[in-house]
């Protein structure tokens, strides 16, 4: 099947080149047809709109009988995508794979995953918590990430324009989905900014959840 695997992949790459409509591209890495970078547009009507998302693709030896290995290269703020590593939680990349699926159809599935988060089967538990507890704040953070990492233009509808983004460097507080005044509050007590962001993220210190976490509890954690 190894000859058939090469033939199929070459066909898939040329099919993608011919199809200008979906705006999905496949680019070989180091001239290997089995290591590619796929790219697609962030779906419109989502916080990812306007961004361009790159995915690292490894075609295994036993393709198409085993699923392709995919992970995001572009950082994405989404419950089913690891904010740290880009690892993806999607069943067709695991036990629901079928050999009729192609690189293009799998990338289209990733695009629809961006439209349709599944927070109850998360890859990134902190992001899923954010999504479930304060949706507006989650969407704002996801938009910040799209602007900071995926090249999405700043939108007018943003309550808080991504100020750091314009300067070419994203604001770590906004990227963490937190509010500056909350970080400042603990910074004034002498704690280090990076650590405060870490702890507040872990506590999901956002929206109505802020009232449920006492300042003492945060300080206790910061002292650890």
């Amino acid at each position, binding site marked *: *099947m190894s000859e*058939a695997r090469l*033939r*199929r992949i070459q*066909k*898939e790459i040329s099919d993608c080149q011919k199809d200008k409509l979906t705006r999905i591209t496949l680019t070989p890495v180091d001239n290997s047809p089995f290591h590619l970078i796929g790219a697609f547009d962030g779906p419109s009507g989502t916080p990812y709109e306007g961004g361009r998302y790159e995915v690292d693709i490894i075609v295994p030896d036993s393709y*198409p*009988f*085993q699923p392709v290995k995919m992970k995001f290269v572009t950082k994405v703020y989404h419950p089913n995508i*690891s*904010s*740290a*590593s880009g*690892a993806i*939680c*999607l*069943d*067709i990349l*695991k*036990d*629901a794979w*079928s*050999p*009729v*699926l*192609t690189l*293009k*159809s799998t990338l*289209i*599935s990733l695009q*629809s995953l961006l439209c349709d988060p*599944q927070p*109850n*089967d998360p*890859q*990134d*538990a902190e992001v899923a918590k954010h999504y479930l507890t304060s949706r507006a704040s989650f969407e704002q953070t996801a938009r910040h990430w799209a602007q900071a990492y995926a090249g999405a233009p700043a939108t007018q509808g943003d309550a808080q324009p991504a100020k750091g983004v314009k300067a070419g460097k994203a604001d770590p507080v906004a990227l963490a989905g937190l509010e500056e005044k909350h970080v400042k509050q603990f910074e004034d007590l002498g704690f280090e900014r990076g650590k405060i962001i870490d702890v507040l993220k872990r506590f999901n210190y956002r929206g109505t959840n802020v009232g449920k976490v006492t300042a003492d509890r945060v300080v206790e954690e910061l002292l650890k």
Partner: protein
Amino acid sequence: MTPGRAGDYVFTQEALDQLMTQLMEGSGQHTTRPASQETRDALPRHTVSAASELRTRDCAVCKDGFDVGQKTVALPCSHSFHDECILPWLELNGTCPVCRTPVRSDAADAPAQPPPRPGAGSGGGPPSPRSPRSPRSAGHNPSQTMPGGLGSRWE
């Protein structure tokens, strides 16, 4: 949950990802089952003839056409594939790659996965080569190869 062991703890997001991926892949082995040797042997074989209807289609697995003289296997759902394309798959997973209908002809094969939802794919109709839903349209229509057409995405 299984009881924790020393060394089960993870301290970074990366390590947690790896652990979750391992767990997900592990659980996958319990949800898909191969078709038995008997089942695979019992599937009807054909040889593509010049007049064969398959000549107008592509194999949904390798995406190549069917040439005269090539050996094919028809599954109970009526989807046909090259023998060398479908048999290795059935050794891993006893379901049709197009419509996910379980392939089994004997009691040795326990149900591999829940049967597809009605309308989710071409159901397990009688094995007729003139099935109105051709493998070509099923294999090449993106809406059918999307996860929604193949079963639940988040099992």
